[in-house]
C-alpha cells in the first residue's frame, strides 16, 4: 500500500512540475499576473508531492517491504534502522528520486523566500526549475521507478554493499546532491535573466546567496567523500583523481569562479555575460557529472549503478537543459550591454584572474577525465589518465591562483596601486618566506616546503584586509577591537574561507611527508615505521551486527613511551560474501596513526601502517571554508530579501 501511495505521489509531482514549467513562463511572457502568481504554489505543491513520495519510500524500507525491487536489492531486515533509511538513496533509482526531491526543495525555497523578487523574474526562475524538475521526474517515473515491484517478494533482502555501510558515506549523497542541485538556482536565474534580457546589480545580489549556499554544501560534500575514501577504502590516500571525484570537483571549481564573478556583477555591473555563462556551465557540469557517472560512461571504482539503456533518456534530457540554455545564451547574451570599466590592476582584475585560473584548472581536469573515453572513441585505444597528469597540470595553475588569492582582497575596486596593496601584505609574505625556509631546511622536500609556504601565505594573507581595516598596531588596541566588531560578516567570511583553503593546503603538504610500510608480523613482534614502534599484541574475533570480524590489537610507542592502541579489523559480510577492512586511525590533530589489517596466514599477519602528517587538516580546512561561506551568507546585506525592498519600491513607482 505504501509504495503505491508513493508511486501515485510521484506521478502527481510530475504533473505539478509540468504545470510549474509551463504556466509561470507563459504568464511571464504574456505579463499575466494570475499565471505568474501561481508559480510559488505550484513549486510548493510539487515539493509536497515529492516529499510524500520519498517519505513512502523510506517507510517501505523501514517496514522491510521486499516487494519493492530497490529495497529487496539494497536492504535487509537485519540491517540497522539508520542504514535502512540511508539505503533508500544507496541505489540508482532512490538516488535519482533524492536528486529530484532536492531540486523540488530549491523550487520551494525560491517560492517561499522569493517574495521580494520582481514577480516576472520569480515566475521565470520557478518555471525554469519546474522544467528541469519535470524532465528528471519523468525519467524517474518511466525508466527508473524507485517503486518498481517484484512478485513474489523475496523473504530477505540482499543487503547494502558493505563498503557503503558507513555513517560518513550514508549521509554523503544528500549533502553532495544538495551542493550539485543547489546550482540549479543560479542556473534558473541565469536563464530567467536571458529571457528577460536584463542583468543588473540587483540580479547579482539575488544570485550570490544561492550560489554561496550550494557552494558550502558542495565543499562539505566533497570533503566528506574524500574523508570517506581516506578511512574506509584503506588505501591511505585522500584524493585519487577518480572520474567520480573529478565529477564533483568540476562544478566546485566553476562554482567558486561563479561566486567571485557574481561579486563583480553585484558591485560593478561588469562581467555579466561571463557570469551568466558560468552559472549555466556550473549547473551543466553538475548535471552531466551526476548522470554520466550514473549511466556508466566513465569507468570508476565508485559506479555501483550502471545501465546504458537509461543513458539515452538522460542524454536527451541533458541536451534539452544544457543545449537549450546555451542556445538561449547564444541568442540573447550578445545584446547584454557591457558596463563597469576597470583597470587590469584592481579588485575586478584580481577576480578576473581568479576566474581564468579556476576555469583553466577545471578545463585540465575535464580534459583528463574525458580523455580515456574520447581516446577509445577516436583512436580505439584503451588508456587511463592517472594522478601524474593531474599533478603536473593542476599545480602550475594552482600556484599563481594561491599567490593572487591573498592579493585580491586588499586591492580596491576600479583601479589599484599594486605597491600600496603589497605594503598591506609584507608581514604575511615575510612570515610565509620564513615558513618556507624552515620547512625546506627541516624536511628536504620541495613539494612540502612549497605547500607550507603557500599555506602560510594564504592563512596570514587572508586576514591582511581585516588587519588593515582595523588599523591593527597603528592605533590603540581598544579602538582596533571596536572596529573589528563593526566589520561586515562578508569580509570575515572571505577571510575565513581563504584561510580554510590554506589549512587544506597545509594538510596536503603534510601528507606529502607521510610514511608507510607493508609488513608481515607475528603476534609479539615489533616493527618501526615513521619514527614509531608498532607492536602486534594479538588477534581476536569481534563479531558485529551483520558481519563476522577479526580484529588485531596494535600498540604504538615512541622512544619507549606509549602513544596509542590501534584496532584494525576485517569484517566478513556473509550475506554478500565480501570482506571489508576497517581501518583504525588515531589522531592527535597533527598526525594520524593509520593501520589496515590484511591477510592472515600461518600465524603471520599482513599489516599496512601509515604515519600521515597533518592529514586531518585537509578536511578541517574544507570545513573552515564552508564556515567562511556560511559567515558570508549570514551577512545582512546578502540575506535573502534584504536587497529587494528598495527594488520593490522602484517597481511600484515604475508601475504607476
Amino acid at each position: 500500500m505504501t509504495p503505491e501511495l508513493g508511486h501515485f505521489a510521484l506521478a502527481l509531482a510530475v504533473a505539478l512540475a509540468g504545470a510549474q514549467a509551463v504556466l509561470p513562463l507563459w504568464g511571464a511572457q504574456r505579463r499575466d499576473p494570475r499565471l505568474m502568481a501561481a508559480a510559488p504554489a505550484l513549486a510548493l505543491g510539487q515539493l509536497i508531492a515529492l516529499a510524500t513520495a520519498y517519505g513512502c519510500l523510506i517507510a517501505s524500507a523501514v517496514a522491510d517491504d521486499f516487494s519493492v525491487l530497490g529495497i529487496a536489492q539494497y536492504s535487509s531486515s537485519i540491517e540497522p534502522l539508520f542504514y535502512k533509511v540511508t539505503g533508500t538513496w544507496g541505489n540508482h533509482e532512490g538516488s535519482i528520486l533524492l536528486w529530484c526531491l532536492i531540486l523540488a526543495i530549491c523550487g520551494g525555497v525560491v517560492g517561499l523566500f522569493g517574495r521580494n523578487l520582481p514577480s516576472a523574474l520569480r515566475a521565470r526562475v520557478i518555471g525554469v526549475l519546474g522544467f528541469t524538475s519535470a524532465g528528471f521526474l519523468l525519467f524517474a517515473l518511466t525508466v527508473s521507478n524507485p517503486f518498481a515491484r517484484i512478485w513474489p517478494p523475496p523473504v530477505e533482502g540482499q543487503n547494502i554493499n558493505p563498503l557503503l555501510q558507513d555513517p560518513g558515506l550514508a549521509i554523503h549523497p544528500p549533502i553532495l546532491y544538495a551542493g550539485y542541485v543547489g546550482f540549479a538556482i543560479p542556473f534558473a536565474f541565469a536563464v530567467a535573466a536571458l529571457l528577460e534580457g536584463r542583468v543588473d546589480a540587483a540580479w547579482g545580489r539575488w544570485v550570490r546567496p544561492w550560489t554561496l549556499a550550494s557552494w558550502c554544501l558542495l565543499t562539505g560534500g566533497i570533503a566528506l567523500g574524500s574523508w570517506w575514501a581516506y578511512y574506509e577504502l584503506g588505501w591511505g590516500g585522500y584524493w585519487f583523481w577518480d572520474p567520480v571525484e573529478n565529477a564533483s570537483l568540476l562544478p566546485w571549481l566553476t562554482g567558486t569562479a561563479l561566486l567571485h564573478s557574481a561579486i563583480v556583477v553585484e558591485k560593478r555591473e561588469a562581467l555579466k555575460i561571463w557570469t551568466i555563462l558560468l552559472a549555466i556551465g556550473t549547473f551543466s557540469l553538475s548535471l552531466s557529472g551526476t548522470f554520466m557517472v550514473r549511466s556508466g560512461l566513465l569507468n570508476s571504482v565508485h559506479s555501483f549503478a550502471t545501465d546504458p539503456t537509461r543513458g539515452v533518456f538522460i542524454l536527451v534530457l541533458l541536451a534539452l537543459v544544457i543545449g537549450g540554455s546555451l542556445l538561449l545564451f547564444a541568442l540573447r547574451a550578445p545584446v547584454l550591454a557591457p558596463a563597469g570599466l576597470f583597470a587590469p590592476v584592481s579588485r575586478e582584475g584580481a577576480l578576473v584572474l581568479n576566474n581564468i585560473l579556476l576555469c583553466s584548472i577545471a578545463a585540465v581536469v575535464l580534459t583528463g577525465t574525458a580523455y580515456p573515453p574520447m581516446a577509445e572513441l577516436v583512436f580505439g585505444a584503451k588508456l587511463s589518465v592517472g594522478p601524474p597528469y593531474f599533478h603536473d597540470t593542476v599545480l602550475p595553475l594552482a600556484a599563481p591562483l594561491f599567490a593572487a588569492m591573498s592579493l585580491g582582497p586588499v586591492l580596491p575596486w576600479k583601479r589599484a596601486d599594486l605597491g600600496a596593496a603589497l605594503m598591506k601584505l609584507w608581514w604575511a609574505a615575510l612570515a610565509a618566506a620564513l615558513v618556507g625556509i624552515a620547512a625546506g631546511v627541516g624536511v628536504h622536500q620541495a613539494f612540502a616546503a612549497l605547500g607550507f609556504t603557500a599555506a602560510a601565505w594564504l592563512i596570514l594573507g587572508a586576514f591582511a584586509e581585516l588587519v588593515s581595516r582595523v588599523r591593527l598596531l597603528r592605533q590603540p588596541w581598544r579602538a582596533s577591537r571596536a572596529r573589528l566588531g563593526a566589520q561586515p560578516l562578508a569580509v570575515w567570511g572571505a577571510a575565513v574561507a581563504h584561510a580554510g583553503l590554506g589549512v587544506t593546503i597545509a594538510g596536503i603538504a603534510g601528507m606529502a611527508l607521510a610514511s608507510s610500510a607493508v609488513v608481515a608480523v607475528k603476534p609479539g613482534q615489533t616493527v618501526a615505521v615513521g619514527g614509531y614502534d608498532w607492536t602486534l599484541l594479538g588477534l581476536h574475533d569481534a563479531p558485529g551486527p551483520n558481519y563476522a570480524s577479526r580484529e588485531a590489537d596494535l600498540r604504538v610507542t615512541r622512544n619507549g613511551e606509549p602513544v596509542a592502541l590501534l584496532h584494525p579489523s576485517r569484517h566478513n559480510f556473509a550475506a554478500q560474501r565480501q570482506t571489508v577492512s576497517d581501518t583504525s586511525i588515531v589522531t592527535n590533530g597533527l598526525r594520524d596513526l593509520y593501520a589496515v589489517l590484511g591477510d592472515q596466514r600461518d600465524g603471520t599477519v599482513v599489516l599496512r601502517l601509515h604515519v600521515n602528517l597533518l592529514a586531518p587538516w585537509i578536511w578541517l580546512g574544507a570545513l573552515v571554508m564552508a564556515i567562511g561561506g556560511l559567515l558570508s551568507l549570514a551577512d545582512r546585506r546578502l540575506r535573502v530579501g534584504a536587497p529587494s525592498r528598495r527594488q520593490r519600491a522602484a517597481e511600484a513607482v515604475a508601475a504607476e
Partner: protein
Amino acid sequence: MDTLIRRRLLLLAPLAVAAGAGGAATALLVRMQEGRYDPHALPSMLVGKKVPAFDLPGQPPSAGFSAADITAQGQPGLVNFFASWCVPCAQEAPALAALQRGGVRIWGIAYKDAPEATTRFLDRYGDPYVRVARDAAGTVGIDFGLYGVPESFLVDPTGVVRWRWTGGLSADLVRQDLLPRLRSLS
C-alpha cells in the same frame, strides 16, 4: 567584421562545445549498447603474446598439463581459471558445458583451491574440462596477469593468447564474442 556578429559567433562557442561533447557521449552510449565499448573492460597485456610457460600438477583423477599441451594437437583452446569458492565460477558452468558439447577444448586451472573442495565443485557443477590442473600457490595466475576468478584466455593453435575475459562467461557472450573468434581461428 561587425562587432555584434563577432560577439554572436563567440557566444555561440559554448553551445558548439556542448554539442560536440553531447555527440561524443551519444556515440559512446550507442557503442556501449552494441557491446563495442565497455568502460569496465580490462585490457590484458597477454593478448597477442605467447602463453606464459608453466607446468602444473593435475587435480586427480585428471593429469596435469603444461603450456605446450594446450596447443599440442593444433587446435585452439580455452584456458579457464576457476575456484570452488567463487560464485561466478558456478554461474558460468552451464556456458562452459555448452562450449564443451560444441567441441571446444577447455583447460581448467583450479586457482588457490583445496583439492577436495575442487572435487566437490566439479561433482556438483559438472566437469567441462579436457584436463584440470592445480595452481595451489597462484604463481601461474600471476604469470597470466590474473585479475580474479573466473577468468578465461583463448589460445590459438600457435600458442598465442587471442582474447581474455574477466568474470563469468554467459551464453550471450559466448555466442556474440567467443564463437566468432573461435571460428576465425579454426
